[in-house]
Protein backbone atom coordinates (compact mmCIF):
# COMPACT_ATOMS: atom_id res chain seq x y z
CA UNK A 1 0.00 0.00 0.00
CA UNK A 2 1.55 3.21 -1.10
CA UNK A 3 -0.86 5.79 0.18
CA UNK A 4 -4.32 5.72 1.59
CA UNK A 5 -6.64 5.77 -1.38
CA UNK A 6 -10.05 4.97 -0.02
CA UNK A 7 -11.96 6.15 -3.07
CA UNK A 8 -10.15 4.04 -5.61
CA UNK A 9 -9.97 1.07 -3.28
CA UNK A 10 -13.70 1.21 -2.79
CA UNK A 11 -14.18 1.31 -6.58
CA UNK A 12 -11.82 -1.63 -6.93
CA UNK A 13 -13.78 -3.61 -4.36
CA UNK A 14 -17.02 -2.96 -6.21
CA UNK A 15 -15.40 -3.99 -9.50
CA UNK A 16 -14.09 -7.22 -8.01
CA UNK A 17 -17.49 -8.01 -6.53
CA UNK A 18 -19.17 -7.40 -9.88
CA UNK A 19 -16.59 -9.55 -11.65
CA UNK A 20 -17.06 -12.42 -9.25
CA UNK A 21 -20.84 -12.06 -9.54
CA UNK A 22 -20.63 -12.26 -13.34
CA UNK A 23 -18.43 -15.35 -13.20
CA UNK A 24 -20.45 -17.08 -10.52
CA UNK A 25 -23.95 -16.19 -11.78
CA UNK A 26 -24.33 -18.97 -14.39
CA UNK A 27 -22.84 -21.53 -12.00
CA UNK A 28 -25.12 -20.47 -9.14
CA UNK A 29 -28.18 -20.47 -11.39
CA UNK A 30 -27.20 -23.93 -12.63
CA UNK A 31 -26.80 -25.16 -9.07
CA UNK A 32 -30.06 -23.68 -7.77
CA UNK A 33 -31.97 -25.16 -10.69
CA UNK A 34 -30.20 -28.48 -10.18
CA UNK A 35 -31.72 -28.72 -6.70
CA UNK A 36 -35.26 -28.61 -8.06
CA UNK A 37 -37.28 -31.51 -9.37
CA UNK A 38 -38.72 -31.49 -12.88
CA UNK A 39 -42.27 -31.10 -11.49
CA UNK A 40 -41.27 -28.11 -9.37
CA UNK A 41 -39.54 -26.57 -12.35
CA UNK A 42 -42.52 -27.01 -14.67
CA UNK A 43 -44.96 -25.73 -12.05
CA UNK A 44 -42.88 -22.63 -11.41
CA UNK A 45 -42.81 -22.08 -15.16
CA UNK A 46 -39.09 -21.50 -15.39
CA UNK A 47 -36.23 -20.00 -13.43
CA UNK A 48 -36.82 -19.64 -9.67
CA UNK A 49 -34.21 -18.73 -7.09
CA UNK A 50 -35.25 -21.23 -4.50
CA UNK A 51 -33.01 -24.03 -3.34
CA UNK A 52 -34.92 -27.24 -3.05
CA UNK A 53 -33.90 -30.69 -1.86
CA UNK A 54 -33.71 -32.70 -5.04
CA UNK A 55 -30.04 -32.29 -5.91
CA UNK A 56 -29.14 -35.85 -4.91
CA UNK A 57 -32.15 -37.20 -6.81
CA UNK A 58 -30.96 -35.41 -9.91
CA UNK A 59 -27.45 -36.75 -9.43
CA UNK A 60 -28.92 -40.24 -9.10
CA UNK A 61 -30.85 -39.63 -12.29
CA UNK A 62 -27.64 -38.64 -14.08
CA UNK A 63 -25.80 -41.70 -12.80
CA UNK A 64 -28.51 -44.25 -13.57
CA UNK A 65 -30.29 -42.82 -16.60
CA UNK A 66 -27.50 -41.29 -18.69
CA UNK A 67 -24.13 -42.34 -20.07
CA UNK A 68 -22.39 -39.48 -18.29
CA UNK A 69 -20.57 -41.57 -15.62
CA UNK A 70 -18.89 -43.66 -18.29
CA UNK A 71 -18.22 -40.57 -20.37
CA UNK A 72 -16.69 -38.91 -17.32
CA UNK A 73 -14.18 -41.76 -17.26
CA UNK A 74 -13.55 -41.23 -20.99
CA UNK A 75 -12.90 -37.54 -20.32
CA UNK A 76 -10.52 -38.47 -17.55
CA UNK A 77 -8.48 -40.87 -19.68
CA UNK A 78 -8.43 -38.58 -22.71
CA UNK A 79 -7.38 -35.53 -20.66
CA UNK A 80 -4.70 -37.56 -18.91
CA UNK A 81 -3.36 -38.74 -22.27
CA UNK A 82 -3.40 -35.22 -23.71
CA UNK A 83 -1.55 -33.79 -20.72
CA UNK A 84 0.95 -36.66 -20.56
CA UNK A 85 1.77 -36.53 -24.27
CA UNK A 86 2.05 -32.76 -24.30
CA UNK A 87 4.33 -32.64 -21.28
CA UNK A 88 6.52 -35.67 -21.98
CA UNK A 89 7.13 -35.11 -25.68
CA UNK A 90 7.72 -31.41 -25.23
CA UNK A 91 10.02 -32.01 -22.29
CA UNK A 92 12.40 -34.35 -24.11
CA UNK A 93 12.31 -32.27 -27.28
CA UNK A 94 12.94 -29.00 -25.48
CA UNK A 95 15.77 -30.61 -23.53
CA UNK A 96 17.35 -31.53 -26.86
CA UNK A 97 16.77 -28.06 -28.30
CA UNK A 98 18.34 -26.23 -25.36
CA UNK A 99 21.15 -28.54 -24.26
CA UNK A 100 22.29 -30.07 -27.54
CA UNK A 101 24.35 -28.46 -30.24
CA UNK A 102 22.72 -29.41 -33.50
CA UNK A 103 22.10 -27.72 -36.81
CA UNK A 104 18.46 -28.76 -36.72
CA UNK A 105 17.68 -26.83 -33.53
CA UNK A 106 16.27 -23.76 -35.25
CA UNK A 107 14.22 -25.73 -37.75
CA UNK A 108 12.71 -28.01 -35.14
CA UNK A 109 11.89 -25.10 -32.86
CA UNK A 110 10.15 -23.28 -35.71
CA UNK A 111 8.28 -26.40 -36.80
CA UNK A 112 6.96 -27.05 -33.29
CA UNK A 113 6.08 -23.44 -32.48
CA UNK A 114 4.18 -23.04 -35.77
CA UNK A 115 1.59 -25.50 -34.45
CA UNK A 116 0.50 -22.89 -31.92
CA UNK A 117 -0.74 -20.58 -34.65
CA UNK A 118 -3.36 -22.94 -36.07
CA UNK A 119 -5.65 -24.57 -33.54
CA UNK A 120 -6.79 -28.13 -34.22
CA UNK A 121 -10.40 -26.98 -34.58
CA UNK A 122 -9.49 -25.26 -37.84
CA UNK A 123 -8.38 -28.46 -39.56
CA UNK A 124 -10.82 -31.02 -38.18
CA UNK A 125 -12.05 -31.95 -41.65
CA UNK A 126 -8.77 -33.44 -42.79
CA UNK A 127 -7.59 -34.52 -39.33
CA UNK A 128 -10.65 -36.75 -39.31
CA UNK A 129 -9.46 -38.43 -42.51
CA UNK A 130 -5.99 -39.03 -41.10
CA UNK A 131 -7.22 -40.43 -37.80
CA UNK A 132 -9.65 -42.64 -39.72
CA UNK A 133 -6.54 -44.21 -41.24
CA UNK A 134 -3.27 -43.15 -39.63
CA UNK A 135 -1.34 -45.31 -42.08
CA UNK A 136 -2.55 -43.19 -44.99
CA UNK A 137 0.81 -41.37 -45.26
CA UNK A 138 2.55 -44.76 -45.47
CA UNK A 139 0.26 -45.72 -48.35
CA UNK A 140 1.13 -42.48 -50.08
CA UNK A 141 4.85 -43.14 -49.66
CA UNK A 142 4.44 -46.66 -51.00
CA UNK A 143 2.62 -45.28 -54.04
CA UNK A 144 4.88 -42.30 -54.60
CA UNK A 145 8.12 -44.25 -54.40
CA UNK A 146 6.81 -46.98 -56.67
CA UNK A 147 7.35 -49.74 -54.11
CA UNK A 148 3.98 -51.24 -54.95
CA UNK A 149 4.85 -51.36 -58.63
CA UNK A 150 8.22 -52.95 -57.89
CA UNK A 151 6.72 -55.56 -55.60
CA UNK A 152 4.14 -56.40 -58.20
CA UNK A 153 6.77 -56.71 -60.92
CA UNK A 154 9.45 -58.62 -59.05
CA UNK A 155 7.62 -60.75 -56.53
CA UNK A 156 4.14 -60.63 -57.94
CA UNK A 157 2.82 -59.36 -54.61
CA UNK A 158 0.10 -56.81 -54.34
CA UNK A 159 0.96 -54.35 -51.60
CA UNK A 160 -2.21 -54.10 -49.54
CA UNK A 161 -3.75 -50.77 -48.62
CA UNK A 162 -2.75 -50.40 -45.00
CA UNK A 163 -5.55 -49.38 -42.64
CA UNK A 164 -5.50 -48.40 -38.99
CA UNK A 165 -8.58 -46.59 -37.78
CA UNK A 166 -8.12 -44.66 -34.53
CA UNK A 167 -11.53 -42.99 -34.47
CA UNK A 168 -13.47 -43.83 -31.31
CA UNK A 169 -10.25 -44.72 -29.47
CA UNK A 170 -8.71 -42.80 -26.58
CA UNK A 171 -5.42 -42.27 -28.34
CA UNK A 172 -7.10 -41.22 -31.59
CA UNK A 173 -9.08 -38.55 -29.75
CA UNK A 174 -6.21 -37.40 -27.56
CA UNK A 175 -3.29 -37.28 -30.01
CA UNK A 176 -4.54 -34.49 -32.31
CA UNK A 177 -5.45 -32.34 -29.29
CA UNK A 178 -1.90 -32.81 -28.02
CA UNK A 179 -0.24 -31.43 -31.16
CA UNK A 180 -0.22 -27.79 -30.06
CA UNK A 181 3.32 -27.32 -28.77
CA UNK A 182 2.91 -24.37 -26.43
CA UNK A 183 4.78 -26.38 -23.80
CA UNK A 184 7.96 -26.25 -25.87
CA UNK A 185 7.90 -22.49 -25.57
CA UNK A 186 7.26 -22.53 -21.82
CA UNK A 187 9.88 -25.17 -21.02
CA UNK A 188 12.43 -23.45 -23.24
CA UNK A 189 12.02 -20.19 -21.36
CA UNK A 190 12.51 -22.11 -18.13
CA UNK A 191 15.54 -24.13 -19.29
CA UNK A 192 17.24 -20.98 -20.50
CA UNK A 193 17.15 -19.55 -16.98
CA UNK A 194 19.14 -22.52 -15.64
CA UNK A 195 22.91 -22.09 -15.23
CA UNK A 196 24.95 -23.26 -18.19
CA UNK A 197 27.38 -25.05 -15.89
CA UNK A 198 24.75 -27.55 -14.83
CA UNK A 199 25.28 -30.03 -17.70
CA UNK A 200 29.04 -29.50 -17.47
CA UNK A 201 29.09 -30.39 -13.80
CA UNK A 202 26.92 -33.41 -14.48
CA UNK A 203 29.27 -34.54 -17.23
CA UNK A 204 32.25 -34.28 -14.87
CA UNK A 205 30.45 -36.59 -12.49
CA UNK A 206 30.03 -39.01 -15.36
CA UNK A 207 26.40 -38.38 -16.20
CA UNK A 208 25.41 -38.59 -19.83
CA UNK A 209 22.67 -36.46 -21.38
CA UNK A 210 19.83 -38.85 -20.53
CA UNK A 211 20.95 -39.23 -16.95
CA UNK A 212 21.26 -35.44 -16.68
CA UNK A 213 17.73 -35.07 -18.05
CA UNK A 214 16.16 -37.58 -15.70
CA UNK A 215 18.13 -36.99 -12.50
CA UNK A 216 18.84 -33.26 -12.63
CA UNK A 217 16.62 -31.45 -15.10
CA UNK A 218 13.39 -33.30 -14.27
CA UNK A 219 13.48 -32.59 -10.52
CA UNK A 220 14.29 -28.94 -11.24
CA UNK A 221 11.34 -28.63 -13.62
CA UNK A 222 8.53 -29.88 -11.41
CA UNK A 223 6.94 -26.43 -11.05
CA UNK A 224 6.40 -25.75 -14.77
CA UNK A 225 5.72 -29.42 -15.47
CA UNK A 226 2.93 -29.72 -12.93
CA UNK A 227 1.42 -26.40 -13.95
CA UNK A 228 1.38 -27.24 -17.64
CA UNK A 229 0.15 -30.75 -16.92
CA UNK A 230 -2.86 -29.38 -15.03
CA UNK A 231 -3.46 -26.79 -17.71
CA UNK A 232 -3.41 -29.28 -20.58
CA UNK A 233 -5.51 -31.71 -18.56
CA UNK A 234 -8.17 -29.03 -18.27
CA UNK A 235 -7.69 -28.17 -21.94
CA UNK A 236 -8.27 -31.78 -22.93
CA UNK A 237 -11.32 -31.98 -20.70
CA UNK A 238 -12.96 -28.89 -22.17
CA UNK A 239 -12.26 -29.55 -25.84
CA UNK A 240 -15.41 -30.17 -27.81
CA UNK A 241 -15.36 -29.92 -31.60
CA UNK A 242 -12.74 -32.60 -32.21
CA UNK A 243 -14.14 -35.22 -29.76
CA UNK A 244 -17.59 -34.50 -31.17
CA UNK A 245 -16.59 -35.76 -34.59
CA UNK A 246 -13.85 -38.23 -33.64
CA UNK A 247 -16.10 -40.17 -31.24
CA UNK A 248 -19.24 -41.36 -32.96
CA UNK A 249 -20.58 -43.71 -30.29
CA UNK A 250 -21.75 -42.60 -26.82
CA UNK A 251 -19.36 -45.16 -25.32
CA UNK A 252 -16.36 -43.34 -26.72
CA UNK A 253 -17.51 -39.75 -26.21
CA UNK A 254 -16.13 -37.58 -23.44
CA UNK A 255 -18.54 -36.09 -20.91
CA UNK A 256 -18.76 -32.63 -22.47
CA UNK A 257 -19.95 -34.12 -25.75
CA UNK A 258 -22.33 -36.42 -23.89
CA UNK A 259 -23.84 -33.46 -22.07
CA UNK A 260 -24.33 -31.52 -25.29
CA UNK A 261 -26.05 -34.55 -26.83
CA UNK A 262 -28.39 -34.74 -23.82
CA UNK A 263 -29.28 -31.09 -24.26
CA UNK A 264 -30.44 -31.40 -27.85
CA UNK A 265 -33.99 -32.49 -27.22
CA UNK A 266 -37.31 -31.80 -28.82
CA UNK A 267 -37.75 -28.00 -28.73
CA UNK A 268 -41.53 -28.22 -28.33
CA UNK A 269 -41.30 -29.85 -24.93
CA UNK A 270 -40.06 -28.12 -21.78
CA UNK A 271 -36.59 -29.64 -21.53
CA UNK A 272 -35.41 -31.53 -18.48
CA UNK A 273 -33.67 -28.38 -17.29
CA UNK A 274 -32.92 -29.47 -13.69
CA UNK A 275 -31.31 -32.66 -14.95
CA UNK A 276 -29.32 -30.77 -17.59
CA UNK A 277 -28.06 -28.27 -15.01
CA UNK A 278 -27.05 -31.16 -12.77
CA UNK A 279 -25.28 -32.68 -15.76
CA UNK A 280 -23.46 -29.42 -16.52
CA UNK A 281 -22.19 -29.30 -12.93
CA UNK A 282 -21.42 -33.03 -13.01
CA UNK A 283 -19.10 -32.74 -16.02
CA UNK A 284 -17.46 -29.52 -14.79
CA UNK A 285 -16.82 -30.32 -11.15
CA UNK A 286 -13.50 -32.12 -11.62
CA UNK A 287 -11.70 -29.47 -13.71
CA UNK A 288 -13.19 -26.58 -11.69
CA UNK A 289 -12.08 -28.15 -8.41
CA UNK A 290 -8.67 -28.72 -9.95
CA UNK A 291 -8.29 -25.09 -10.97
CA UNK A 292 -9.72 -23.78 -7.69
CA UNK A 293 -7.31 -25.84 -5.59
CA UNK A 294 -4.26 -25.57 -7.84
CA UNK A 295 -4.80 -21.96 -8.94
CA UNK A 296 -1.57 -20.71 -7.39
CA UNK A 297 0.61 -23.49 -8.82
CA UNK A 298 -0.91 -23.25 -12.28
CA UNK A 299 -0.55 -19.50 -12.55
CA UNK A 300 2.97 -19.49 -11.14
CA UNK A 301 4.14 -22.34 -13.36
CA UNK A 302 2.67 -20.85 -16.52
CA UNK A 303 4.16 -17.46 -15.80
CA UNK A 304 7.75 -18.60 -15.65
CA UNK A 305 8.04 -17.43 -19.22
CA UNK A 306 7.32 -13.88 -18.12
CA UNK A 307 10.01 -13.58 -15.51
Amino acid at each position, binding site marked *: MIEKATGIDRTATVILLLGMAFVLAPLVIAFVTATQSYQQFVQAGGIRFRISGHFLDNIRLIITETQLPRQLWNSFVISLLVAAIKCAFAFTATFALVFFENRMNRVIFAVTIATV*MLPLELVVITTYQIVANVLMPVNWIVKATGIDWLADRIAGVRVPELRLNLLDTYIGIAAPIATSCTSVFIYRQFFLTLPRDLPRAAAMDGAGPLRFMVDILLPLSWTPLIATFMFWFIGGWTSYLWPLIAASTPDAQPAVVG*LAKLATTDPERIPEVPMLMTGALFVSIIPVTLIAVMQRQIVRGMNLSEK
Partner: protein
Amino acid sequence: MVRRYCKAGKMRQGFYVGRVTYAMLVAPILVLIFLFFYVPVGLAFFWSFFLERPFGGGSQFVGMQNFSRVLSDPVYWEALRRTVVFMIIAPGLAIGISLVLALAADRGLRLSQAARNIVIWPKAVAGASIGVVFVFIFNPFLGIFSPINDLFPGLWNPRIDGNDAFATIVVAQVWNGIPFNFVILLSGLQAIPDMLVKSAAMDGAGSWRRILDIQLPLLTPQLFLTFVLEFVGTVVEAFGLIDTMTQGGPGEATTLLIYKIYVDGFKAYDLSGAATQTVLLMIFVIVMVLLQFRLEKHVKYER
Protein backbone atom coordinates in the same frame (compact mmCIF):
# COMPACT_ATOMS: atom_id res chain seq x y z
CA MET B 1 34.89 -47.09 -16.60
CA VAL B 2 37.20 -44.67 -18.31
CA ARG B 3 35.44 -45.27 -21.60
CA ARG B 4 32.07 -44.57 -20.04
CA TYR B 5 33.37 -41.34 -18.59
CA CYS B 6 34.58 -40.23 -21.97
CA LYS B 7 31.27 -41.07 -23.55
CA ALA B 8 29.35 -39.20 -20.90
CA GLY B 9 31.63 -36.22 -21.19
CA LYS B 10 31.16 -35.85 -24.91
CA MET B 11 30.35 -32.17 -24.96
CA ARG B 12 31.34 -29.04 -26.73
CA GLN B 13 31.28 -25.82 -24.73
CA GLY B 14 28.62 -27.12 -22.41
CA PHE B 15 26.41 -28.54 -25.15
CA TYR B 16 25.83 -32.20 -25.80
CA VAL B 17 26.60 -33.33 -29.31
CA GLY B 18 25.34 -36.93 -29.56
CA ARG B 19 23.30 -37.14 -32.75
CA VAL B 20 21.48 -40.39 -31.99
CA THR B 21 20.36 -39.25 -28.56
CA TYR B 22 19.23 -35.97 -30.06
CA ALA B 23 17.17 -37.73 -32.70
CA MET B 24 15.60 -39.98 -30.09
CA LEU B 25 14.61 -37.00 -27.96
CA VAL B 26 12.96 -34.97 -30.70
CA ALA B 27 11.46 -37.86 -32.67
CA PRO B 28 8.27 -38.36 -30.61
CA ILE B 29 7.05 -34.78 -30.92
CA LEU B 30 8.03 -34.59 -34.59
CA VAL B 31 6.15 -37.78 -35.46
CA LEU B 32 3.13 -36.55 -33.50
CA ILE B 33 2.91 -33.13 -35.11
CA PHE B 34 3.78 -34.45 -38.54
CA LEU B 35 1.02 -37.04 -38.45
CA PHE B 36 -1.70 -35.06 -36.71
CA PHE B 37 -0.86 -31.48 -37.67
CA TYR B 38 1.21 -31.08 -40.81
CA VAL B 39 -0.38 -33.91 -42.79
CA PRO B 40 -3.95 -32.64 -42.09
CA VAL B 41 -2.94 -29.07 -42.91
CA GLY B 42 -1.26 -30.23 -46.11
CA LEU B 43 -4.20 -32.43 -47.00
CA ALA B 44 -6.58 -29.49 -46.59
CA PHE B 45 -4.54 -27.49 -49.11
CA PHE B 46 -4.43 -30.51 -51.42
CA TRP B 47 -8.17 -31.10 -51.25
CA SER B 48 -8.96 -27.49 -51.93
CA PHE B 49 -7.76 -28.09 -55.50
CA PHE B 50 -9.66 -31.35 -55.93
CA LEU B 51 -13.27 -32.37 -56.02
CA GLU B 52 -13.43 -34.95 -53.24
CA ARG B 53 -16.33 -37.32 -53.16
CA PRO B 54 -17.44 -38.51 -49.73
CA PHE B 55 -16.97 -42.13 -48.59
CA GLY B 56 -13.79 -42.56 -50.66
CA GLY B 57 -15.52 -42.02 -53.99
CA GLY B 58 -12.35 -40.78 -55.65
CA SER B 59 -11.14 -37.30 -56.46
CA GLN B 60 -10.67 -35.14 -59.48
CA PHE B 61 -8.40 -32.15 -60.03
CA VAL B 62 -10.45 -29.00 -60.52
CA GLY B 63 -7.88 -26.22 -60.10
CA MET B 64 -9.28 -23.07 -58.55
CA GLN B 65 -12.91 -24.10 -59.01
CA ASN B 66 -13.44 -24.82 -55.32
CA PHE B 67 -12.17 -21.39 -54.42
CA SER B 68 -14.31 -19.61 -56.97
CA ARG B 69 -17.31 -21.63 -55.83
CA VAL B 70 -16.78 -20.75 -52.15
CA LEU B 71 -15.87 -17.13 -52.80
CA SER B 72 -18.86 -16.50 -55.05
CA ASP B 73 -21.23 -17.80 -52.39
CA PRO B 74 -22.89 -14.88 -50.55
CA VAL B 75 -23.52 -17.18 -47.57
CA TYR B 76 -19.76 -17.52 -47.15
CA TRP B 77 -19.23 -13.75 -47.13
CA GLU B 78 -22.05 -13.32 -44.62
CA ALA B 79 -20.40 -15.88 -42.33
CA LEU B 80 -17.06 -14.12 -42.76
CA ARG B 81 -18.61 -10.74 -41.91
CA ARG B 82 -20.23 -12.22 -38.79
CA THR B 83 -16.94 -13.83 -37.78
CA VAL B 84 -15.12 -10.50 -38.07
CA VAL B 85 -17.81 -8.70 -36.07
CA PHE B 86 -17.63 -11.43 -33.45
CA MET B 87 -13.83 -11.22 -33.41
CA ILE B 88 -13.99 -7.52 -32.66
CA ILE B 89 -16.76 -7.48 -30.06
CA ALA B 90 -16.03 -10.59 -28.00
CA PRO B 91 -12.27 -10.18 -27.48
CA GLY B 92 -12.72 -6.43 -27.00
CA LEU B 93 -15.18 -6.99 -24.18
CA ALA B 94 -13.30 -9.92 -22.69
CA ILE B 95 -9.99 -8.05 -22.62
CA GLY B 96 -11.58 -4.79 -21.42
CA ILE B 97 -13.34 -6.48 -18.52
CA SER B 98 -10.26 -8.57 -17.67
CA LEU B 99 -8.12 -5.43 -17.66
CA VAL B 100 -10.41 -3.60 -15.25
CA LEU B 101 -10.59 -6.67 -13.03
CA ALA B 102 -6.83 -7.14 -13.12
CA LEU B 103 -6.22 -3.50 -12.20
CA ALA B 104 -8.62 -3.87 -9.29
CA ALA B 105 -7.15 -7.20 -8.15
CA ASP B 106 -3.63 -5.78 -8.32
CA ARG B 107 -4.39 -3.34 -5.51
CA GLY B 108 -3.91 -6.06 -2.91
CA LEU B 109 -7.28 -5.65 -1.23
CA ARG B 110 -8.74 -8.21 1.13
CA LEU B 111 -11.00 -9.38 -1.68
CA SER B 112 -8.16 -9.82 -4.18
CA GLN B 113 -7.22 -13.37 -3.21
CA ALA B 114 -10.76 -14.67 -3.51
CA ALA B 115 -11.30 -12.80 -6.77
CA ARG B 116 -8.08 -14.13 -8.28
CA ASN B 117 -9.23 -17.64 -7.59
CA ILE B 118 -12.86 -17.38 -8.64
CA VAL B 119 -12.37 -15.31 -11.77
CA ILE B 120 -10.34 -18.07 -13.43
CA TRP B 121 -12.91 -20.81 -12.85
CA PRO B 122 -14.55 -20.41 -16.28
CA LYS B 123 -11.27 -21.61 -17.80
CA ALA B 124 -12.15 -25.06 -16.46
CA VAL B 125 -15.70 -25.06 -17.80
CA ALA B 126 -16.08 -26.28 -21.37
CA GLY B 127 -17.80 -23.91 -23.78
CA ALA B 128 -20.29 -26.62 -24.61
CA SER B 129 -21.13 -27.16 -20.92
CA ILE B 130 -21.68 -23.52 -20.12
CA GLY B 131 -23.57 -23.20 -23.41
CA VAL B 132 -26.12 -25.65 -22.04
CA VAL B 133 -26.49 -23.41 -18.96
CA PHE B 134 -26.63 -20.13 -20.89
CA VAL B 135 -29.22 -21.40 -23.32
CA PHE B 136 -31.48 -22.01 -20.32
CA ILE B 137 -30.64 -18.67 -18.68
CA PHE B 138 -31.49 -16.82 -21.90
CA ASN B 139 -34.51 -18.95 -22.73
CA PRO B 140 -37.31 -16.49 -23.61
CA PHE B 141 -39.95 -18.39 -21.62
CA LEU B 142 -38.01 -20.11 -18.83
CA GLY B 143 -34.95 -17.90 -18.32
CA ILE B 144 -34.11 -14.66 -16.53
CA PHE B 145 -35.73 -12.48 -19.22
CA SER B 146 -39.06 -14.28 -19.13
CA PRO B 147 -40.59 -11.62 -16.80
CA ILE B 148 -39.68 -8.96 -19.36
CA ASN B 149 -41.28 -11.06 -22.07
CA ASP B 150 -44.43 -11.31 -19.98
CA LEU B 151 -44.68 -7.53 -19.98
CA PHE B 152 -43.54 -6.92 -23.56
CA PRO B 153 -44.14 -10.12 -25.52
CA GLY B 154 -41.48 -10.84 -28.09
CA LEU B 155 -38.99 -8.25 -26.87
CA TRP B 156 -36.36 -10.90 -26.18
CA ASN B 157 -36.26 -14.09 -28.17
CA PRO B 158 -32.92 -15.50 -29.27
CA ARG B 159 -34.72 -18.30 -31.08
CA ILE B 160 -36.30 -15.87 -33.51
CA ASP B 161 -34.26 -12.68 -33.35
CA GLY B 162 -30.79 -13.07 -34.83
CA ASN B 163 -29.30 -10.15 -32.91
CA ASP B 164 -30.51 -11.57 -29.61
CA ALA B 165 -28.96 -14.91 -30.48
CA PHE B 166 -25.69 -13.26 -31.47
CA ALA B 167 -25.67 -11.34 -28.18
CA THR B 168 -26.09 -14.53 -26.15
CA ILE B 169 -23.10 -16.10 -27.90
CA VAL B 170 -21.03 -12.97 -27.22
CA VAL B 171 -21.93 -12.98 -23.51
CA ALA B 172 -21.05 -16.66 -23.20
CA GLN B 173 -17.78 -16.18 -25.08
CA VAL B 174 -16.83 -13.24 -22.87
CA TRP B 175 -17.60 -15.32 -19.78
CA ASN B 176 -15.37 -18.08 -21.06
CA GLY B 177 -12.63 -15.72 -22.23
CA ILE B 178 -12.13 -13.64 -19.08
CA PRO B 179 -9.89 -16.02 -17.05
CA PHE B 180 -7.03 -16.39 -19.48
CA ASN B 181 -6.78 -12.66 -20.18
CA PHE B 182 -7.14 -11.88 -16.51
CA VAL B 183 -4.25 -14.17 -15.57
CA ILE B 184 -1.95 -12.77 -18.24
CA LEU B 185 -2.77 -9.13 -17.47
CA LEU B 186 -2.56 -9.56 -13.70
CA SER B 187 0.83 -11.26 -13.93
CA GLY B 188 1.94 -8.40 -16.18
CA LEU B 189 0.80 -5.82 -13.64
CA GLN B 190 2.56 -7.63 -10.82
CA ALA B 191 5.78 -7.77 -12.77
CA ILE B 192 5.92 -3.96 -12.89
CA PRO B 193 8.64 -2.96 -10.42
CA ASP B 194 7.28 -1.47 -7.22
CA MET B 195 9.95 1.20 -7.45
CA LEU B 196 8.37 2.80 -10.50
CA VAL B 197 4.94 3.06 -8.95
CA LYS B 198 6.38 4.34 -5.68
CA SER B 199 8.55 7.00 -7.27
CA ALA B 200 5.58 8.19 -9.31
CA ALA B 201 3.63 8.44 -6.09
CA MET B 202 6.43 10.53 -4.58
CA ASP B 203 6.21 12.82 -7.57
CA GLY B 204 2.62 13.40 -6.62
CA ALA B 205 0.89 11.16 -9.14
CA GLY B 206 -2.38 9.89 -7.72
CA SER B 207 -3.71 6.38 -8.12
CA TRP B 208 -5.68 7.09 -11.30
CA ARG B 209 -2.77 8.96 -12.86
CA ARG B 210 -0.44 6.08 -12.11
CA ILE B 211 -2.81 3.62 -13.77
CA LEU B 212 -2.97 5.73 -16.92
CA ASP B 213 0.64 6.84 -17.18
CA ILE B 214 2.58 3.93 -15.71
CA GLN B 215 0.66 0.72 -15.37
CA LEU B 216 -1.18 0.76 -18.70
CA PRO B 217 1.83 1.68 -20.87
CA LEU B 218 3.98 -0.92 -19.14
CA LEU B 219 1.27 -3.48 -19.70
CA THR B 220 1.44 -3.18 -23.49
CA PRO B 221 3.25 -6.49 -24.08
CA GLN B 222 0.64 -8.43 -22.14
CA LEU B 223 -2.21 -6.53 -23.76
CA PHE B 224 -0.71 -7.34 -27.11
CA LEU B 225 -0.35 -11.00 -26.22
CA THR B 226 -3.96 -11.24 -25.06
CA PHE B 227 -5.17 -9.69 -28.31
CA VAL B 228 -3.21 -12.15 -30.45
CA LEU B 229 -4.40 -15.15 -28.45
CA GLU B 230 -7.99 -13.95 -28.19
CA PHE B 231 -8.28 -13.28 -31.92
CA VAL B 232 -7.13 -16.77 -32.81
CA GLY B 233 -9.12 -18.26 -29.94
CA THR B 234 -12.45 -16.67 -30.73
CA VAL B 235 -12.32 -17.92 -34.32
CA VAL B 236 -12.55 -21.49 -33.07
CA GLU B 237 -13.70 -21.42 -29.45
CA ALA B 238 -17.16 -20.16 -30.23
CA PHE B 239 -17.97 -23.51 -31.82
CA GLY B 240 -18.97 -25.23 -28.58
CA LEU B 241 -21.22 -22.30 -27.68
CA ILE B 242 -22.85 -22.10 -31.10
CA ASP B 243 -23.43 -25.83 -31.31
CA THR B 244 -25.13 -26.04 -27.92
CA MET B 245 -26.88 -22.65 -27.88
CA THR B 246 -28.13 -21.78 -31.36
CA GLN B 247 -26.95 -24.39 -33.89
CA GLY B 248 -26.02 -21.45 -36.09
CA GLY B 249 -29.54 -20.04 -36.14
CA PRO B 250 -31.97 -18.43 -36.20
CA GLY B 251 -31.71 -18.21 -39.93
CA GLU B 252 -27.95 -18.15 -40.09
CA ALA B 253 -27.48 -15.30 -37.64
CA THR B 254 -24.86 -17.12 -35.55
CA THR B 255 -23.23 -19.23 -38.26
CA LEU B 256 -19.59 -18.25 -37.91
CA LEU B 257 -17.02 -19.67 -40.33
CA ILE B 258 -15.93 -22.47 -38.02
CA TYR B 259 -19.52 -23.63 -37.66
CA LYS B 260 -20.14 -23.41 -41.38
CA ILE B 261 -17.10 -25.58 -42.06
CA TYR B 262 -18.40 -28.18 -39.64
CA VAL B 263 -21.88 -28.20 -41.15
CA ASP B 264 -20.62 -28.27 -44.75
CA GLY B 265 -18.08 -30.99 -44.06
CA PHE B 266 -19.83 -33.30 -41.63
CA LYS B 267 -23.51 -32.71 -42.30
CA ALA B 268 -23.58 -31.93 -46.03
CA TYR B 269 -20.48 -34.04 -46.87
CA ASP B 270 -19.11 -31.29 -49.08
CA LEU B 271 -15.53 -32.22 -48.27
CA SER B 272 -13.87 -30.06 -50.93
CA GLY B 273 -15.93 -27.03 -50.00
CA ALA B 274 -15.14 -27.52 -46.32
CA ALA B 275 -11.44 -28.05 -47.04
CA THR B 276 -11.35 -24.93 -49.17
CA GLN B 277 -13.01 -22.91 -46.42
CA THR B 278 -10.52 -24.41 -43.98
CA VAL B 279 -7.65 -23.22 -46.15
CA LEU B 280 -9.16 -19.74 -46.42
CA LEU B 281 -9.71 -19.59 -42.66
CA MET B 282 -6.15 -20.75 -42.00
CA ILE B 283 -4.81 -18.05 -44.29
CA PHE B 284 -7.07 -15.53 -42.55
CA VAL B 285 -5.78 -16.53 -39.11
CA ILE B 286 -2.13 -16.52 -40.22
CA VAL B 287 -2.52 -13.08 -41.81
CA MET B 288 -4.16 -11.76 -38.64
CA VAL B 289 -1.36 -13.11 -36.47
CA LEU B 290 1.37 -11.79 -38.75
CA LEU B 291 -0.35 -8.39 -38.95
CA GLN B 292 -0.45 -8.24 -35.18
CA PHE B 293 3.21 -9.13 -34.96
CA ARG B 294 4.02 -6.37 -37.43
CA LEU B 295 2.03 -4.05 -35.25
CA GLU B 296 4.04 -5.23 -32.29
CA LYS B 297 7.20 -3.78 -33.79
CA HIS B 298 5.72 -0.34 -33.41
CA VAL B 299 5.03 -0.89 -29.72
CA LYS B 300 7.78 -0.02 -27.29
CA TYR B 301 8.55 -2.51 -24.55
CA GLU B 302 11.30 -0.71 -22.68
CA ARG B 303 10.96 -1.12 -18.97
